[in-house]
């Protein structure tokens, strides 16, 4: 574990998450990179040339505005390749697609679907109720009388992103970013962004998750209206529920908080182990909570389909068997930390010991019926510290970075909800390594 625990950066991130500020769409980096950065250490490095470079890159990107910021964010996820200073600077970037006035929104809708909203819907709210990934979301009612949410993207985003990447490559930003950032990484970032802005792909994700999560009766996933959707417009059924902060205003009972907390935890582990794909945008606005204990899950722009070894290794983490099994230990290091990290390194040992202590304290295998008090800020602090070490040492492979982001986002949510959850028991239901197979279902 680190000496000198600093909590302020995490607090700030948690506050940000609560406010839902600056987290529009799936700008994961912003929400989750923050807690990974140890502020005190960063301060020490303020004078270094590296940081100056990082600031310069951020400034330049910020001046370019628009989708380029998303590029910065995507690159900020490449923790393997970038210095921590660079990650910090890049994750401070926020993306704003310009808001669309009703005339532009209508024009874009027609450009995508060939007709105006009022021609294909019974009613349509001209003012958006939320910002989305490079666009905005409107309420509407279909001709059949169903309530829907219509997500509309700002025009020509794809072209703008492609041209931003051309500029990025031409301007030699790539070299500037770290000195050793590879072209393939930039290409990967571009591919990722282009994928995320394609609403047809998001529609596929929704269908996939709708089917995959059907056994969990307490989860509601929207239904896509393909005839009212395209790559730039996505029409989905409206999912009931309140955002976390609004929900808390209704002063829910501890029993209800626990029930929802348990449902959220089950949702997470079920995705990880049974679906092997994650809804990886833990923005609190994406979970809609209901008094009957059901959860609406929305926004599937950022979804990670996992390789089978990822859930397997995660389960091995939990099992703690690796502490006595050198072969298993080496495999975990290879899969989770990547092939470039040697299992024998002292910092790796220290880190793994820290992980073990953390799990023993908060997810004890011998007291599985004990509920974890997520309101306890010590758990959150320790989690943040752990994440901070992993990221600083560039330990996490990109897949595990996604996983740990989703997990800490989930913990953040549960923390704000002040839920008590039997995490170990739930994890056990589906976790292969804990060897207690059970079929899914029943909330």
């Amino acid at each position: 574990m680190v000496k000198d625990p600093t909590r302020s950066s995490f607090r700030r991130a948690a506050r940000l998450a609560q406010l839902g500020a600056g987290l529009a769409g799936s700008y994961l980096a912003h929400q989750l990179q923050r807690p990974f950065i140890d502020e005190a250490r960063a301060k020490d490095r303020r004078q270094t040339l590296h940081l100056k470079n990082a600031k310069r890159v951020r400034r330049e990107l910020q001046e370019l505005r628009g989708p380029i910021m998303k590029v910065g964010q995507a690159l900020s996820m490449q923790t393997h390749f970038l210095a921590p200073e660079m990650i910090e600077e890049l994750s401070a970037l926020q993306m704003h697609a310009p808001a669309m006035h009703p005339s532009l929104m209508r024009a874009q809708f027609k450009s995508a679907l060939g007709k105006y909203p009022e021609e294909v819907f019974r009613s349509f709210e001209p003012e958006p109720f939320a910002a989305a990934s490079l666009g905005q979301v409107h309420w509407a009612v279909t001709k059949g009388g169903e309530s829907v949410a219509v997500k509309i993207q700002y025009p020509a985003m794809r072209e703008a992103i492609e041209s931003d990447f051309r500029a990025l490559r031409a301007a030699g930003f790539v070299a500037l970013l770290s000195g050793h950032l590879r072209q393939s990484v930039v290409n990967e970032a571009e591919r990722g962004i282009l994928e995320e802005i394609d609403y047809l792909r998001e529609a596929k994700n929704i269908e996939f998750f709708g089917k995959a999560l059907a056994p969990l009766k307490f989860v509601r996933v929207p239904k896509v209206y393909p005839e009212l959707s395209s790559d730039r417009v996505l029409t989905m059924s409206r999912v009931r529920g309140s955002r976390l902060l609004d929900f808390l205003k209704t002063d829910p009972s501890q029993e209800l908080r626990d029930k929802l907390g348990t449902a959220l935890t089950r949702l997470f582990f079920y995705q990880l182990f049974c679906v092997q794909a994650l809804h990886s945008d833990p923005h609190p606005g994406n979970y809609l909570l209901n008094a009957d204990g059901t959860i609406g899950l929305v926004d599937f722009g950022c979804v990670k389909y996992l390789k089978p070894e990822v859930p397997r290794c995660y389960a091995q983490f939990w099992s703690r068997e690796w502490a006595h099994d050198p072969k298993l230990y080496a495999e975990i290091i290879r899969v989770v930390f990547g092939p470039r990290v040697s299992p024998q390194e002292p910092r790796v040992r220290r880190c793994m010991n820290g992980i073990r202590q953390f799990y023993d304290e908060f997810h004890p295998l011998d007291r599985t019926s004990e509920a974890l008090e997520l309101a306890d800020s010590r758990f959150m602090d320790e989690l943040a510290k752990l994440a901070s070490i992993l990221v600083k040492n560039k330990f996490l492979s990109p897949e595990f970075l996604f996983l740990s982001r989703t997990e800490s986002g989930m913990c953040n949510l549960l923390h704000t909800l002040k839920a008590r959850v039997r995490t170990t028991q739930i994890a056990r239901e589906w976790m292969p390594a804990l060897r207690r197979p059970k079929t899914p279902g029943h909330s």
Partner: protein
Amino acid sequence: MKKSHRGRNKSAGRTKRSGGKRELNKERTKERILEGALQLFREKGLEHTTTKEISKKAGIAEGTLFNYFKTKEDLALYFFQKETDDLIQWFRGEARLQKAPLAEKLFAIIHRQLEYIEPYEDFIGAVFYRSLQPSSMLSPLSFESQEFRLRYLRFIREILADAEKKGEIPPVGALGAYAVGLFYMGIVTHWLHDTSRGKQKTLALLDRALSLGTNVLKKGGWEW
């Protein structure tokens, strides 16, 4: 062309401007010819459409056609006159737009113009370049095109004056209306070459350029 006639009628919709029954019939025939011709241009392209086909479609003798339109350019001029009428009439009926910010008003107006010409892209493309020749009837300098251009400029000027009155922009005078007119021509050029799906690049350009333009003006002209 009955220019003297139209001159007295300011910017009122053309359909209301019918004199006698004969005038009305004449106008209807012109509209019918235009409609048929546009359909043919769409199917066969401007160059491959013959006057014979146009007159057949309109149900008139080929010789009669020339009483109404001497050339395809003539027909194009009539098309733009109708377009201007349609635009002004449409805008007056849009209650919500009257209260919208200037950038949105101009966006909606130009988008409406693009929408009007959209089905006839080939035809517009062909006449657009012809209009760059000073000798063309469609040229901004030709006598024939002045009437509808002036009507358009006055219309835009009215909108700008309204924005000036509301303090949205500093006084820009007649120059502002000319600037919008030129901007529209630039946008049409971009639109004609826009290969993005649903011509969304033009939408983005239009939106960005208008918000940039109005923001610059808000800051008090070019000296920001």
